[in-house]
């Protein structure tokens, strides 16, 4: 019991990893169940955020240098380009099919 109280009153690496894990699990849930293309992109953003949080947590608690933070900056950069491309594709699909339900858009060409 005392060990659990000590674990709760002192924030360490594990706390950040658990928050990152919850974000990752929710992102996976969104990608699995949503049928709206924009919602799926929201889930991907959650997953990328959880990965970045884990990188910064390890860089702070495990290595003590800033290499992990640099990977997080690269993750944010990739997330930005992924969002721009993904949303452009979603808009193109919407103009073609008038819906962005990923189950309704199953034709490849005409």
């Amino acid at each position, binding site marked *: 019991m005392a060990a659990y*109280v000590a674990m709760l*009153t002192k*924030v*360490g*690496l*594990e*706390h*950040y*990893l658990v*928050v990152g*894990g*919850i*974000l990752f*699990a*929710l992102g996976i*849930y*969104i990608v*699995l*169940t*949503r*049928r*709206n293309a*924009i*919602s799926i992109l*929201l*889930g991907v*953003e*959650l997953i990328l*955020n959880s990965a*970045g*949080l884990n990188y*910064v947590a390890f*860089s*702070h*608690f*495990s*290595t*003590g240098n*800033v*290499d992990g*933070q*640099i990977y*997080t*900056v*690269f993750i*944010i*950069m*990739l997330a*930005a*380009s992924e*969002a*721009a*491309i993904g*949303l*452009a*594709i*979603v*808009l193109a699909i*919407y103009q073609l099919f008038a819906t962005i*339900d990923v189950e309704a858009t199953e034709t490849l060409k005409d």
Partner: protein
Amino acid sequence: MEISIDVLIFYLVSLVVVGSACIVAFSRNIVHSAFSLLGTFGGVAGLYVFLGADFVAAVQVLIYVGGILVLILFAVMLTHRISDIDITNRTVGRIPGLVAVAVFLGILVYAIGETDWVKVKEVAYAPTTATIGNLFLGDYLLPFQIAAVVLLVALIGAITLSRKEIKE
């Protein structure tokens, strides 16, 4: 036992992150989902501040909250048919998905608790911006340049995909 104020703030910020991520995942209205992402991104920026990563926190606020979130809201407004909410945020297989993800999260938390992580003796809180800048133009010069090319390609690709075709 007493809980210090920074631990309380950590739990508060984590609650904001997890709570708004839950709204993103379980809301039936996509506008609510998109706006809740603001809480998640801002809360993660707060956690970065807790971890002594001031530059990454500023980048998170500028790019995620200021850029990606606005982009997503634009896409929601452009494709959203407000009248039929059932279509805008349909979910399929809620219960199996929830069970699978809960089992996965349980395994993840168990592994986090059981692993003996490598830890530094003394965690340091120092300004990181100058160090990150020197590393970008030193050890990480090649990835930095490739990132610039990737951004250029993404820019051109987004323009090419979203412009209207002009029929001859």
